[in-house]
């Protein structure tokens, strides 16, 4: 892992299209601004992980399909 020390308003560039800038440094957190092209997905890690786990848990669910379908057809 590359490790940098950055101060407020200092940035790191990744390639020529991505910039990671330190906007504010607080006691409990750092506010970071990411500038990236639209085709580069940027997510908080925990959100991505949460969805990844949810997806993994959802593969081929044990479901009584006709009963569920029937139930969902009711208004």
């Amino acid at each position: 892992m590359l490790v940098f020390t950055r101060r407020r308003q200092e940035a790191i560039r990744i390639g020529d299209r991505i910039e990671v800038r330190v906007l504010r440094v607080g006691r409990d957190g750092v506010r970071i601004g990411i500038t990236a092209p639209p085709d580069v997905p940027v997510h908080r890690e925990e959100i991505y992980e949460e969805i990844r786990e949810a997806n993994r848990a959802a593969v081929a669910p044990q479901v009584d399909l006709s009963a569920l379908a029937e139930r969902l057809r009711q208004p």
Partner: protein
Amino acid sequence: MARSNAALPVPADTPAVSPEVQEGLARNAISFPDGIPGFEACRRFVLLTSDAMAPLQRIESIEGPPAAFLGIDPRLLLEGYRCALTETDLRALGADGDSTLLWFAIISEVDGVLSANLRAPIVINPQRMIGRQVLPDDGLYPIRHVLTTKA
């Protein structure tokens, strides 16, 4: 659109399908350029519907590791459901504001409880046959919107 019988679950080691069926699947393939989280290697899926399983639908991987998901249009579960799409999402889907998009909330079964993921729906642009899972930064909708507890 491809159709299937209502049988679920399909075992992961489902025998290989005939070339004709494979060709049909390929014609109906929806490309997922980014895969979906946890299944990043699955880049092509088919959407399967049938009268018997309506309003439920299935999405199945036809490339990479086997993955099959059960889902439903989230707008049928929650009146007024509206998950905002970012510029990035629209661009990835090749969609403009007027495009008709298909929405698919993944249904899961955990400890006997069925729920639908309203937070991160799969969105498909049927005109371009491109899909992606939307990951909103806000927590407006739950990942586990409970549908029903198992009897």
